[in-house]
């Protein structure tokens, strides 16, 4: 069965500077990203700031133009569509934003915001729109009376739900969730995460869940892709990547996630060195300058490791088969030193 979404070798470069705007420079935000997403599946896209994860989401939806690569949605080449065809396919691929405060038009009532998609695509006669809007509000757990409210009259969690209802109105098959809970309070995060999980179960929507918080991603994602410097460095089923991360960056990321249990503090891998500048991508592995893998050598600095299969995972590391044992990185009450690497089965 063909996947719902196929992304191949996506590249996005931003040109900055030029005439009267400062020195010319090219920022390589996305440097060759490929993955597939099946219907009803959640792929978590994790990375820190500058990793390019948000850009990936926008480029897939053609909210920004890609510099190279292709995206096939339901078998259709998204980048080759005309404006009219793009508008039609936009129904099927929607986005939920991070900031509940700026993702809604401050001058529009919630009901109008949610109805916008219905109006644009003429999905219902105008008389039926309020009814449908009320249903959508209920589906996201809001009382239909919220229709009349302005964004500033709603809390962050409520605004986020309105944004989700807006995206759902056009019945999408694919939803890009760009850090949807990062700006919310802890007690509200859980509500929205549960809502997204329910929606997936009920409607069979596929999610590309972009976040920096691995613990949050873990709740919803079937598979997780870790991005570093515009590339995917590891892609694996959720449990696999959390229990046995193979790429050193993934290991460092996992070790840095705060553990809410004082008795089970992880030894944290503290990364030394500086990440490469976005303007100057190195020829080899972008993580080489900070990598702590015992087998790191010249090859890493000069030769870009491809994303390749290692067991259940895909890893972009020359020495993934020799990655550190998980036990060296798991919860230990005392500090432990990295062990001599032994090949993984």
């Amino acid at each position, binding site marked *: 069965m063909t996947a719902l979404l196929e992304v191949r070798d996506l590249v996005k470069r931003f040109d900055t500077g030029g005439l009267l705007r400062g020195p010319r420079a090219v920022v390589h935000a996305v440097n060759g990203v490929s993955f597939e997403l099946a219907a009803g599946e959640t792929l978590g896209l994790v990375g*820190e*700031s500058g990793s390019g994860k948000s850009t990936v989401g926008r480029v897939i939806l053609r909210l920004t133009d890609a510099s190279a690569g292709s995206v096939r949605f339901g078998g259709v080449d998204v980048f080759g569509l005309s404006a009219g065809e793009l508008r039609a396919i936009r129904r099927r691929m929607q986005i939920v934003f991070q900031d509940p405060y700026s993702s809604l038009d401050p001058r529009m009532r919630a009901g109008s915001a949610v109805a916008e998609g219905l109006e644009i695509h003429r999905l219902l006669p105008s008389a039926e729109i309020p009814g449908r809007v009320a249903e959508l509000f209920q589906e996201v757990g809001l009382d239909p009376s919220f229709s009349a409210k302005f964004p500033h009259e709603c*809390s962050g*969690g*409520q605004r986020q739900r309105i944004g989700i209802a807006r995206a759902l109105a056009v019945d999408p098959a694919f939803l890009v969730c760009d850090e949807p809970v990062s700006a919310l*309070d*802890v*007690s*509200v*995060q*859980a*509500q929205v*995460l*549960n809502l997204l*999980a329910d929606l997936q179960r009920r409607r069979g929507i596929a999610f590309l869940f972009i976040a*920096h*918080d*691995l*613990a*949050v991603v*873990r*709740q919803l994602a079937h598979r997780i892709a870790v991005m570093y410097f515009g590339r995917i460095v590891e892609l694996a089923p959720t*449990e696999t990547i*959390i229990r046995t991360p193979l790429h050193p960056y993934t290991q*460092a*990321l*996992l*070790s*840095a*996630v*705060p*553990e*809410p*249990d*004082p*008795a089970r*503090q992880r030894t*944290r891998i*503290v*990364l030394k060195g500086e990440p490469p500048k976005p303007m100057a991508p190195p020829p080899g592995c972008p993580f080489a300058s900070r990598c702590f893998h015992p087998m790191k050598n010249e090859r890493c600095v000069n030769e870009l490791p491809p994303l390749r299969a290692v067991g259940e995972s895909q890893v972009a590391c020359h020495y993934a088969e020799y990655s550190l044992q998980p036990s060296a990185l798991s919860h230990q009450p005392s500090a432990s030193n990295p062990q001599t690497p032994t090949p993984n089965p």
Partner: protein
Amino acid sequence: MSDLLEVQDLRIRFPAPGGGVSCPVDGVSLRLARGETLALVGESGSGKSLTALALLRLVPPPGVIDPASRIVLEGVNLLELQGEALRAIRGGRIGLVFQDAMTSLNPVISIGEQVRETVAAHRTLRGKEARERAIALLDEVGMPGASTRYRAYPHELSGGLRQRALIAIALAGEPDVLIADEPTTALDVTVQAQILELLDQLRTSRGMAVLLISHDLGLVAGRADRVAVMYAGQIVEEASTSRLFRSPSHPYTRALFGSIPRLDGAVDRLVPIAGAVPLPDAWPPACRFHPRCPEVLARCSIETPPVVPLAPGEMSRCWLLVKGAR
């Protein structure tokens, strides 16, 4: 360890929109001893940031600290100080590290200069000596290449380095108490760990007391000696970190634990806390958590629960802990 800082019944009043008065901080009491880290945990709207500002008498107008409150730093009531004496406290005895380094740093002055300015304001160092002290401070906070980075502007630095610069400024007056208000919220996870590590080291090497304010329980777990949980302007639970995490005594704390995603996947489905955080001009009557409490009793909506002492330095505001309350 004697008490360095003691806050008794801190109350901050603001005029409410429809007339009347609201108290976003409503009876907060804290103790902080030298060499320890106290974490003040709460969601937005709990009043934790205002509490931090109050300690430095920086409550924004029209907010006013209730005169019945007491903030005592080594025997001196800070609320009675004026002018020079008050200025000396700010930065000199109590330092404050803000959350967002990008907006807290002056964008048109180099970071080294900003540190030097603070040094010169608090110590009797001038000119070259102040500059050298500034470089030493930048070094102490782990700024690589401190003497070169002295001339860097905030926008030229990464988030983590900016935060380090902010910490250096906070330390410039050689404070005894360091308040860190969400010092890592805007930072990446790998950098967060570094900054918290740094704060820990500084606490030990300088013998300071640290008040760590955060909304993230996970952050706090490995870093604090004691935790105070704040909800709706009050501290609802205070305990040693290990006790809090092992057996939280307040329903809000328990509910928080149930709702946060864990990396070890202990929960299959998160249990959110129903409802929303109340606003200061509409605190629920009696127990402020009662409308959302999964363990609520009839009494909770009628009578304000007392502060129940549990162990030395530990308390909780809940009827469930009072014998015979059910």
